[in-house]
């Protein structure tokens, strides 16, 4: 067996959980999108309407991609392809960096490098693993689409289109891993490239030209600067053409050859960009200070996400209003996202997106709290807990910073919504009210932040899965409970269900107070329990 294949099997073994989760997740998303389109837009007329709406609105084109006819498959592809391809790209970059720069940084690559193998063998193995993962992804996405009732031939082409984008980013991430000094920075840079591919495609699609009857949009040349744009050109359900996918595969092979040559000439551990030098003196003197410095880069990431979400909520509102003016089915769909659907359509849209910003706020906070667990398992907590400060102090500092992070993320979302409305030049909801609408989700977010803190103090091993699991459960129940027709009592389990959907609903001080007290109680329990268990790790 060639060495690269043997190494590839070893890398696959390390990835045996993570990569299948990615692949199945992406395939399930495809299945869910296809099912939703079939049930929500079963009638040809409905699909024709939504395609016409989208074709006439650059904002839709930017977000989703270009419509290409109104067959069910074509609408599914238009709705879901760009985002699915984005996920495939991220799967590839994370996979590649994990086995290249991160291994080098942690010294594992050195062990392999000392064996009688060619210097390029580990990298070649990673490229093989990335290629195999994307091939399986193509199959799974195709099966998902077919299972949802889409035509088989088109489904296979669509699966290949998603995988072709993922495949393209395998050698690209490998190049990034050669250049960047750490696994962390390589992941960031490679993910940014995937994001840039999405944005370039968005710009190219937004300035594309719709045909006369608004059934199709031809994206501009800018989209072809992005692999996602090329994947979109395969048009699986209208005029299937695998040529653009071949172009991506050839490009991937070329970049792969270049990166293998680069690796052969590079010292192990060397990078084009050197690690930046830090301060010789620190100003950190407290647990809160440390938590802040560690949370800052993460918080910036969540704030960018919240700003995009808020900006869309504000900026797209008027566009939506125009678009759905004559379309009752779309109006109904958006209305179902928020109770009280008789309200103004723009407010409903804004409230729904701001609700998602509330989830982002909770996620930012959860990540802050779960850092406690990382500090413990990675052995840094014992340095912190041997100083004359209590464990309670350590936990509360991180908890408070987590709640503050959630508040900041929510505030940013509200402010961005206000800016979005201002830029469209319409007289929408006043800025103060939009910010209040976002901040109204903070009490619910606080419960999601306090819960993993309690788990961390009681059963530390489970804090990470339960922390994120609760958020996922709350998101499904609170945001989509109505849409999925779940019973009222089940929906009421989620704190998000008790957040007022401002500006549609009015602020409810009672429920906010109750949620605040629950979160505070959770924090107090966590602070008590953390003093009574062994430090692990």
């Amino acid at each position, binding site marked *: 067996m060639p060495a690269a294949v043997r190494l590839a099997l070893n890398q696959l073994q390390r990835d045996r959980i993570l990569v299948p989760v990615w692949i199945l997740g992406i395939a399930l998303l495809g299945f869910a999108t296809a099912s939703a389109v079939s049930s929500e837009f079963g009638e040809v007329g409905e699909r024709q309407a939504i395609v016409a709406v989208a074709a006439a609105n650059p904002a839709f084109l930017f977000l989703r991609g270009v419509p290409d006819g109104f067959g069910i498959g074509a609408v599914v592809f238009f709705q879901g392809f760009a985002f699915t391809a984005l996920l495939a790209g991220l799967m590839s970059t994370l996979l590649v960096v994990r086995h290249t720069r991160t291994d080098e940084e942690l010294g594992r690559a050195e062990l392999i490098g000392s064996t009688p193998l060619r210097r390029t063998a580990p990298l070649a193995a990673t490229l093989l693993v990335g290629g195999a993962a994307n091939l399986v992804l193509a199959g799974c996405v195709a099966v998902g689409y077919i299972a949802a009732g889409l035509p088989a031939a088109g489904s296979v082409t669509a699966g290949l289109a998603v995988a072709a984008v993922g495949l393209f980013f395998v050698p690209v991430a490998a190049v990034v891993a050669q250049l960047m000094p750490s696994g962390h920075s390589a992941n960031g840079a490679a993910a940014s490239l995937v994001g840039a591919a999405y944005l370039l495609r968005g710009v190219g699609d937004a300035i594309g030209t719709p045909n006369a009857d608004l059934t199709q949009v031809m994206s501009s040349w800018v989209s072809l600067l992005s692999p996602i744009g090329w994947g979109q050109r395969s048009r699986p359900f209208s005029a299937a053409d695998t040529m653009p996918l071949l172009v991506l595969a050839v490009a991937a092979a070329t970049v792969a050859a270049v990166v293998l040559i680069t690796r052969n000439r590079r010292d192990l551990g060397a990078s084009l960009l050197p690690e930046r*030098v830090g301060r010789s003196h620190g100003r950190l003197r407290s647990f809160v200070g440390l938590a802040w410095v560690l949370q800052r880069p993460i918080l910036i990431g969540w704030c960018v996400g919240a700003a995009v979400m808020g900006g869309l909520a504000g900026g797209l509102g008027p566009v939506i209003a125009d678009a759905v003016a004559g379309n009752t089915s779309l109006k109904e769909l958006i209305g179902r996202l928020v109770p009280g659907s008789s309200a103004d359509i723009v407010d409903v849209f804004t409230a729904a997106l701001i609700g998602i910003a509330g989830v982002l706020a909770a996620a930012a906070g959860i990540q802050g709290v779960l850092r406690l667990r990382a500090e413990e398992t990675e*052995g840094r907590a014992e340095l912190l807990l041997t100083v004359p400060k209590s464990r309670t102090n350590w936990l509360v500092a991180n908890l408070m910073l987590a709640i503050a992070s959630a508040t900041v993320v929510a505030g940013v979302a509200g402010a961005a919504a206000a800016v979005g409305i201002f830029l469209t030049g319409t007289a929408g909801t006043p800025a103060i009210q939009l910010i209040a609408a976002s901040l109204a989700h903070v009490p619910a977010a606080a419960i999601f932040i306090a819960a993993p803190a309690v788990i961390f103090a009681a059963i530390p091993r489970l804090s990470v899965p339960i922390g994120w699991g609760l958020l996922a459960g709350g998101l499904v129940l609170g945001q989509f409970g109505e849409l999925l027709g779940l019973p009222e009592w089940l929906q009421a389990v989620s704190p998000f269900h008790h957040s007022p959907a401002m500006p549609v609903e009015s602020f409810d001080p009672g429920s906010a107070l109750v949620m605040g007290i629950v979160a505070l109680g959770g924090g107090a329990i966590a602070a008590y329990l953390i003093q009574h268990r062994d430090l692990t790790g």
Partner: protein
Amino acid sequence: MADTTDPIIEVRGLGKVFGKTRALDGLDLSVAAGEVHGFLGPNGAGKSTTLRILLGLIRPSSGTATVFGADPWREPVRSHQDLAYVPGDVSLWPNLSGGEVIDLLTGLRGGADTALRRRLIDAFEFDPRRKTRTYSKGNRQKVALIAAFARPARLYVLDEPSSGLDPIMESVFRSEIGRVHDDGATVLLSSHILSEVEQLCDRVTIIRAGRVVESGSLTALRHLKRTHFRVEGVDGRVLANLPGIQDVRVDGLTTEFEVEAATLPLVLEGVAAARPTGLTVSPPSLESLFLRHYAEPSSANDGAGEDRAGRVD
């Protein structure tokens, strides 16, 4: 050698059970004020577990531990008031520079002595500006050592602190121990490096499988041990009858054996009477003592430990 003042660390009958594993099994340890105490034992003997209990990070299953007269589990803040700790495996925040970590850790204890900090960074030839993710094991160790020594403490708890340091840095480390010792601080030092223990420690405690097998001053332990003889040019059978000799090995006209301190004068007379052509007498080596404790299976160990009169003070 018993100290009249209260010991800084007092451990009685300490036990710790992790699931089905018994990590500590009735361990006793007493560290007097102002002494440098070596804490030795093979891997998995329970050294780090003991230190983690003394630091209040984990709770003992049985027995008692006090540090500065306080129970470290109940009163971690009080027992940490004047304490500096260096873990065995130093893990740091990859995004912070070494200098930032040093200032964070000393800051949490009340702030570094700036002159001391500067001197330590020079002495350890340490670059505080690099991000800790780029540090080797030795450099990460230096971060923890500088942070521990840059602010005066009354008790230093060090878990194999010089692992990863080169010989020059080891000597810097030893001189820092000497300095804090001269200042009257107490040091509990777990170690594998015998020369380090011999040079630094006033007293040592050796543990195995969660129990103490030897504890005492280094001098007392040395006296307890047997002197090694190598006699040449004499028929081995003649020497075999000497009183109190042990581990006799005969190879032609060369005979090797061990002698307890008590019977040394008699043996010397007997050897002289045998008129040897060559004689080598080696002092009792600490190494042989450690190797014996380290290598014995734990079942055989219990009796053997008692044979050697367990505690010598």
